């Protein structure tokens, strides 16, 4: 699980990008606290061939990226 809560743009996407480029995992969970991070990560994940499921968790959002 990548905890990207509280990081300003574009760090949440960079954290996901690094994980994808390192291991190319089949599935990846990310926790963020801003809608803009949800949008940015979703767009990046789609460009890398991942499907994205977003679930609100209190003030935060959990994203599950799956190939």
């Amino acid at each position, binding site marked *: 699980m990548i905890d990207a*809560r*509280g*990081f*300003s*743009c*574009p*760090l949440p*996407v*960079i954290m996901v*990008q690094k994980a994808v480029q390192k291991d190319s995992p089949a599935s990846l969970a990310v926790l963020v*606290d*801003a*809608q*803009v991070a949800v*949008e*940015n990560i979703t*767009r*990046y994940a789609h*460009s890398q061939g991942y499907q994205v499921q977003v679930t609100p968790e209190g*003030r935060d959002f959990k994203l599950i990226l799956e190939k």
Partner: protein
Amino acid sequence: MREKSWIREYGWILLTGVVVGVAALILTSAGNPKNMGFCIACFERDIAGALGMHSAGKVQYLRPEIIGIVLGSTLAAAVSKEFRGRAGSSPACRFAIGVFVMIGALVFLGCPLRMVIRLGGGDLTAVAGLLGFLAGILVGIFFLRRGFSLGRAYPVRKGEGSILPGMMILLLFLLLAAPSLLRFSEEGPGSMHAFWGISLIAGLAVGALAQRSRLCMAGGLRDVFLLRDFRLLSGFLAIWITVTIGNLLLGSYHLSALSQPIAHSQHLWSFLGMALAGWGSILLGGCPLRQLILAGEGNGDSAVTVLGMIVGAAVSHNFGLAGAADSVAADGTYVIGGIGTAGMAAVALGFAVLLAVTLAHLPGKEEAI
């Protein structure tokens, strides 16, 4: 289906770009300085002057556009339930970076938004600024890839996030109800302005749209190089194209590197000023416009950054760091403007400060959580 997703992805950002461009043209026609329909750096500098934080008589006016942008963002964020108090990501560093982003922008004579508006008016001197902005962004990306981070922000109460929107309401009250407390330029760019209601409405529209679309001039170029993502850049280009077409239609497009409104021909310092602004914007996570939007959404760190930029504007004019525009002397000679030794030293100091902040926030140093 594909068409729908394209509209969802690019619709808001293109609409925002077009509205910013049209608003800039309207504001210029309604009285704002030429090629300065919207300029975050210039307008924050004018606000600093209106509040007596500097005494440069030609740049003092409490610009309602800035008030509108912040409050437009607040309203849009409230409607979309995105208004949240957040703070705690190295606020003092952000303040210092904000100071130098402003110093760099005022050396060039415009923020990244005005840079695009200047380009849209045919101002070729802005090309040096664009190249510098790009260079600064690439330096910022170099360090982002190596793990640069100012650390996490944390949830705070909505009251903390309401400080900058609250200050903007207070400024609007002062402008309308107690203007005698403020300073107003009688000549120069500060004396040129649209009717306050038009400026406020334009600011509200741009603030609300930029909040929804996440428009960011630095982010546009950054995302292309970092993520091969062209969404934000499309907003940047939409502004440029809209302003260019508008100026061509209005007969106010002048393709030249000479005698451009409020611009100078010290190309090296235009380049370096915008490189400083570009690098700083990447470290902050967004350009001066984006900082206003984030502050409007309740981000206390961005509110501190905006205050840093206003102080930076005051410092620029109190210490003679800002660029002077090219001019024509009484005998017809063309006088090259630009900056003096103090401005050059300030830009150099700015690069040193940004480098120090960057190196202190790389992984393996003192760990930020």
